[in-house]
């Protein structure tokens, strides 16, 4: 018979998620080194170059933080939706939809005051993201349709829509080789605050606090947790679980849409396929690895932004940028392994048992 039994720990270390993340990151670096080693590259050289080019100067640091913006915002959106125990795999599509909605409003309106205009454009990005998840949200709360599959498939639809628009109605005749929509006017660019760091990063800090407030401090957040926890408790407490789920999804989608709007106004300045490079998927890792905590998402988002920048610069020395993605995904797998040892203990079976 089995000599050992598994037992759930009664008390879980409060910093378990943090330690798991660290352990996961170390495991991921080890795996990354192994891959580099197989490719006959010196891992130490590659990693130190990545470090230098991602946080070594004001310029590279601001690049890294700019990359962190969409990861953080989309991750926050995912975490809000997860409060009701639902998954948003559609952040990638919502980011694109945010940019599309922004461009739609931009084409059809004209406001002279650029600050008000920027604000309007950011709001339309938020609404675009919310609109993108509207159908999965409605079908989830009304009929119980699996939101993982509907939000994921929406990504492909919105990406197809983007390609359709930039090759058709919105095609910029001046952009010959690379299909894209026309640039927005320089007056609505988001200003930079430090080096190349976009003021979008300040919006990002603000929304991290908002998400923290919504999730952990507000009545809505409390009701969301109850709604996501147990259907019966929600009924006893007089909370409409469906209503909470619906609004959580729209808000979460909006966060990702805002990420797309900021990306357009600060980086690409036009709708193109470059609006997101898989940020919506990386955001899932960022959100899951922190146990859906907004402050954690902010910090890990910054780290992963730096990793992404580091990954793209090492291409110059012939190392594939996918190394960064693999390190990100492996970090989460490593963290899951570590989580096990924080939540369970292996006990020796008592002989008399």
């Amino acid at each position, binding site marked *: 018979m089995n000599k050992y039994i598994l037992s759930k720990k009664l008390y879980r270390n409060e910093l378990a998620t943090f330690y798991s993340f660290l352990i996961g990151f170390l495991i991921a670096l080890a795996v990354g080194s192994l891959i580099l080693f197989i490719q006959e590259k010196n891992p130490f050289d590659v990693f130190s170059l990545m470090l230098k080019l991602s946080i070594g100067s004001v310029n590279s640091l601001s690049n890294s933080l700019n990359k962190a913006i969409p990861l953080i915002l989309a991750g926050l959106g995912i975490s809000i939706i997860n409060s009701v125990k639902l998954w948003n795999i559609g952040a990638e599509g919502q980011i694109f939809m945010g940019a599309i909605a922004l461009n739609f409003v931009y084409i059809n309106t004209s406001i002279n005051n650029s600050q008000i205009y920027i604000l309007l454009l950011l709001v339309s990005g938020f609404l675009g993201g919310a609109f993108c998840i509207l159908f999965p949200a409605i079908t989830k709360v009304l009929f119980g349709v699996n939101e993982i599959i509907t939000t994921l498939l929406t990504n492909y639809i919105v990406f197809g829509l983007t390609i359709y628009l930039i090759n058709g109605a919105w095609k910029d005749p001046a952009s010959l080789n690379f299909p894209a929509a026309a640039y927005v006017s320089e007056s609505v660019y988001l200003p930079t605050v430090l080096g190349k760091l976009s003021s979008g990063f300040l919006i990002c800090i603000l929304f991290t606090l908002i998400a923290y407030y919504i999730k952990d401090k507000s009545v809505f957040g409390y009701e969301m947790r109850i709604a996501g926890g147990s259907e019966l408790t929600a009924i006893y407490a007089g909370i409409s679980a469906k209503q909470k789920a619906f609004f959580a999804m729209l808000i979460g989608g909006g966060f990702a849409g805002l990420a797309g709007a900021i990306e357009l106004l600060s980086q690409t300045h036009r709708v193109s396929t470059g609006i997101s490079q898989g940020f919506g*998927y990386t955001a899932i890792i960022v959100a899951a690895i922190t146990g859906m905590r907004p402050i954690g998402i902010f910090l890990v988002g910054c780290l992963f932004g730096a990793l992404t920048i580091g990954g793209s610069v090492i291409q110059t020395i012939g190392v594939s940028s996918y190394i960064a993605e693999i390190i990100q995904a492996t970090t989460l797998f490593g963290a899951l392994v570590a989580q096990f040892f924080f939540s369970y203990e292996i006990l020796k079976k008592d002989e008399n048992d």
Partner: protein
Amino acid sequence: MIDVQLMGLLNATLQAATLLFIAALGELITEKSGILNLGVEGMISVGAVSGFITAINTESLFLAVIVGVLSASAFSSIHAFVTVVLKQDQTVSGLILTILGLSLSSLIGKPYVGKKLEVKLESLIDIAEPSNIFQVLLSQNLIFYIAILLMIFTAYILKKTMFGRRIEAIGEDLKSADSMGLKIAKTQFIATCVGGAFAGLSGVYLTLSYVPYWTDGMTSGRGWIALALVIFGGWKPYRTAFGALLFGFLEALGPRLQTYGFEMSPYIVKITPYIITILVLVFLTIIKNGNTGAPKNIGIPFFRENR
């Protein structure tokens, strides 16, 4: 003339359906045991790229198929380890399996982008222009017939053998299964790896026959459509096969609409399979009133409380 077109459509339907069906059937087995694996897309990709690389380097199709299937299965064992042994969240693990699988296959496939395959899975009986439905059926390649055999085997094993009944017992009622002394972890681990092997076979079919080359992201959401197919099929092999034919037909119909006189932007045609998948899923969930027939313990880790 119409006949040739129609046979072409039928042929394309069968090919698209085979690809989706094998992956869906594997996921069905995994889910029957109570393990949800959202990593199908990643596993198909791993199978596709490793099969392709093997085929290019060894020019042996047999070896390519074996390597593709085994590597996807080995890859799925990460999910099995994390969810079955370590009892971590199946949704998180599966999603990351997809992300990891896609980036890993992009990494190892990079030197092979644009390379042409010298050997390709040919149809067993070469019929240049099939003119009736039997000739189309006979002109498929080996994996198509393997898919049919797998369907019959899987249906039989799940319904008629002890092993299949055990899988179902574990997926439906963990506590009873445990008190009956069934080896839950072992069964779930095997079911997950079998699901991975099937996804690998589907991936091999993709790069060795369906589109005989390798590019990044070429699985283009088929793993997710396969996941939707399992729901569509109500966790039943034959019904899943029917669903695969339907989805395969829609995928094959898209690019041909123009020849039938429908003017449609090719960009819109490309997204129709995803729209239709969502609509079918919604429609199905509505008529079944939310009860799609999923195994009851899906996504719930097994943990025997010690007292």
